[in-house]
């Protein structure tokens, strides 16, 4: 990561340029609503991730500049909290719940089957950028354990076969096209 910092830190961020992009407007709005105060940092990073799907260095520099907090602190907050991701997500995302109820219900086997099928572990994206695999601490859908989220939709009472089939639909569909 440090290497990336050195590589791209020369790129100057300009607030006018960024406000042209519609996606930056949500970010700017969030900062404005919070009075551009340093304590709006987490809210702002949420807005960045919501707009872009992930938080890159460019965004971190911009937020640091606008909220007047050191870049080191922005980087620290973005990496401390599990919800934030610094890597762009794949086309499709599967979040497997690893909460206690899901664990008892066999979510480890589900993860393993995805690993066997796609060769990716938690937090990784397939080489073709099609599928990202994430894990969640608890979705709060314990009544439906084991559960997972497929592109934002929660599915419950899963087993490895169903999950692999659902993910297979993403990859197969795309190879047909």
């Amino acid at each position, binding site marked *: 990561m440090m290497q990336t910092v050195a590589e791209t830190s020369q790129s100057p961020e300009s607030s006018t340029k960024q406000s042209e992009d519609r996606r930056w407007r949500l970010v700017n709005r969030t900062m404005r609503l919070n009075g551009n*105060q*340093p*304590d*709006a*940092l*987490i*809210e702002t*990073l*949420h807005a960045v991730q919501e707009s872009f799907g992930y938080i890159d260095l460019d965004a971190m520099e911009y937020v640091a500049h606008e909220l007047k*907090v050191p870049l080191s*602190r922005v980087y*620290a*907050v973005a990496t*401390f*909290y*599990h*919800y*934030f991701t610094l890597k762009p997500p794949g086309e499709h995302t599967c979040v497997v719940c*690893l*909460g*206690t*109820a899901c*664990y*008892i*219900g066999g979510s480890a086997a589900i993860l393993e089957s995805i690993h066997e099928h796609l060769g990716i572990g938690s937090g990784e994206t397939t080489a073709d950028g099609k599928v990202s695999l994430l894990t*969640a*601490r*608890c*979705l*709060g*859908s*314990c*009544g*439906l*354990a084991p*559960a997972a989220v497929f592109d934002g*939709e*929660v*599915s*419950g009472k899963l087993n490895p076969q169903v999950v692999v089939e659902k993910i297979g639909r993403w990859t197969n569909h795309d190879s047909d096209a």
Partner: protein
Amino acid sequence: MTLTLEELQHIARIERDRQEGFQHRIKICVAAGCLSCQSGTLKEAMQKEVSRRGMENWVDVKGVGCLGLCTAGPLLFVEPEGILYQGVKFSDVGPIIEALGTGPVGALQCSTDVPFFTKQHKVVLENCGRIDPERIEDYIAEEGYEALYNALRNMTPKEVIEEVTKGGLRGRGGAGYPTGLKWTTVSKAINDTKYVICNADEGDPGAFMDRSVLESDPHRVLEGMAIAAYAVGANQGFVYVRAEYPLAVKRLRTAIAQAERLGVLGNGIFNTRFRFDVRVRLGAGAFVCGEETALIASIEGRLGKPRPRPPYPAEYGLWGYPTLINNVETFANVPPIIRKGGGWFAGIGTEKSKGTKVFALAGRVSHTGLIEVPMGTILREIVFDIGGGIPDGGKFKAVQTGGPSGGCIPEQYLDMPVDYESLAKVGSIMGSGGMIIMDQSSCMVDVAKFFMEFCMSESCGKCVPCRVGTTQIYNLLCKITSGAAHPSDLDKIEELCDLVKNTALCGLGQTAPNPVMSTLQYFRDEYAAHIEDKYCPANTCKMQLAKEVV
């Protein structure tokens, strides 16, 4: 705009009349559990079908909060007949509408005359599954915001605190600190600026009570917060809620906007000089932020790391000001206490644990879902009567309460009353209310390892005992489950557990060893089987062959 009691009651009357104007009211659960079984689109289909048949003037279709029995979703409740339908599909929409007024659709009906429903006592969840969480009028029709009116107009802050103290309410976040005492401390702090924070960072895996309350009845939490703010002298509130609960966040924001529009939040509430604003702050997936000082740091936009206490947040909290932090369920208990009196509340529960507790039943149990029972209910009743016992002829092994900070309670304690003291006595805690039931297919060493892995990766890294200790314990547990352990490793684990428990900075570290210690206490033979016989009794752990082990 300020609201008077007459206006409030007027809104309630109009809403009640409106509801009674319908011959049938179809309530579809749109809380997270049922939503993931497509109850949202089911609701739309039902609404479309009702208007297609031209019945919209006498049949009301609305989305409501959690109906409790998550395992049988999507759930649907028909009033005034009182029929509960389970597992409703799109093809059932027509038959259900046709059956209105003639009798239930037998195949779908779920009896409400079973222990799952009859043994519950609803205080916090009284509106869940009854009102539309996205309409403030629905809440007002159920006497909503009347408690706030009473508190502001007819009681002094001191009297409000006295009422809560009389009720014997204790913190529902897990530790069980007396709420009245906490309020008193904050109210006595001398400062013009004070804050009230609602802790909705429900990080315990296996717990979804706070989520359900926020999704089903958000106004109740806001009302509780406003009453608390009046009692302690605060004007600004924050709800710190997990970003992983987008629906709860959305409904909470809707509720705040509605309350502000009506004037039950904002300036000069009910024509008094009391002013209270609430803002939502999103968590970002750090379990440690459930700890109050870490939570405060996170609201301030910093890393969620705890700091030593004292000073407690009651004296030195958000931005250094006196701050009251209570859990969602604690605040949700406040309006009924003010409405019905502390004496009424104290009449429920046991001597030291008053009121009710909401539990999230999950794991190997027939009826998973959300339940609310009086404190002191026997554990066996919860698991076997309300929960319906173990499915597929399994055998009960243990129940885990309190998440990663709690312990596993074995069969011999099934006849124990569930309250703060009894749970602590057997090495577990009340926690926020997750209850995971395990049968013979769960390996207790593996479960302990699961929780230790959780604490290890959620440790914020500030203090050494937690950061290093949890990793060391986890490594030793891995050694055991892979069949590479030596009997002396158990002593090492015990020593480490003791050390982490006594020296960690915050609650996360201090309670992290609990799952290991409780399983060691009650299921030592399983550990022994892994170590000495290289055998996993539950057949969960993949052991190396004995000859590979050095």
